[in-house]
């Protein structure tokens, strides 16, 4: 019994991480406080990092934790700490009036779950597991075949930083004028 469990530990952990990620994502729709929503998203991202690690793509798991949790979500948490006390809509309903469009999203969720439960994958994908790729193969592909994309991401990041500074400066000019 214990040997069987240990033999399937990877699968069990994968299902556990996937289930926890789904629950954390669902909590984001239910929780009221933005900080709690942010913590639910952080836990969802960490569980997804665990899923990536179990799939053998460790460098993406590391990127997930370092970039998403360590940079994006920390920035988001700073913004929540800065803005939350000013939020005067805290006493009103947390949901918008767009119930019918919201149903579209819930229908998409139900469809995804139903299709996954009742339909099988195409034969070519079922049980397939290609040769796992490591950071070396990823880096070679990235810097040889996809070097233009690499350069474009650098340009995009610089453009984002310049745009963020421009937004702040424009606002200061507006306030002085």
């Amino acid at each position, binding site marked *: 019994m214990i040997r069987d469990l240990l033999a399937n530990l990877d699968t069990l952990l994968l299902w556990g991480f996937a289930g926890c990620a789904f629950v954390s994502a669902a909590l984001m729709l239910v929780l009221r406080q933005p900080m709690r929503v942010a913590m639910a998203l952080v836990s*969802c991202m960490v569980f997804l990092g665990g899923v990536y690690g179990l*799939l053998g793509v460790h460098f993406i798991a590391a990127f997930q934790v370092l970039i998403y949790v360590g940079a*994006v979500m920390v920035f988001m948490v700073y913004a929540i700490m800065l803005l939350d006390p000013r939020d005067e809509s805290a006493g009103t309903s947390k949901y918008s009036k767009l119930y019918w469009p919201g149903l579209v999203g819930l229908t998409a*969720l139900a469809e995804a779950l139903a299709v996954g439960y009742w339909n099988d994958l195409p034969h070519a994908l079922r049980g397939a597991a290609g040769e796992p790729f490591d950071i070396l193969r*990823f880096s070679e592909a990235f810097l040889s075949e996809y070097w233009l994309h690499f350069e474009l991401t650098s340009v995009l990041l610089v453009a984002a930083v310049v745009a963020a500074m421009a937004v702040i400066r424009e606002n200061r000019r507006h306030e002085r004028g």
Partner: protein
Amino acid sequence: MDKVQMLQVLAASLFALGLTGVIIRRNVLVMLMCMELMLNGVNLSLVTFAHTMGSAVGAVLVFLIFVVATAEIAIAIPVVLLLVRRKRSLDIETYTDLKG
């Protein structure tokens, strides 16, 4: 259920939950976080297929999505800060200046 199938269902569910959150939540910051959840769903789908096919293309795309998400947040947070300064609210329904 197969492992790949389960992960694809999870990816689609995360995308659908994020989409629902963007539509029905009123807080601008929560809406931004729901967009991040949608990106995470796409990332999971790409990683699963890259793992299944043994191809590095999916991983390259995931890396690009990481950068796009970072750039998106770097722009979105200052814009939200300025909006809150002017409107004194995080409620999306108060931002009606561009309404026709």
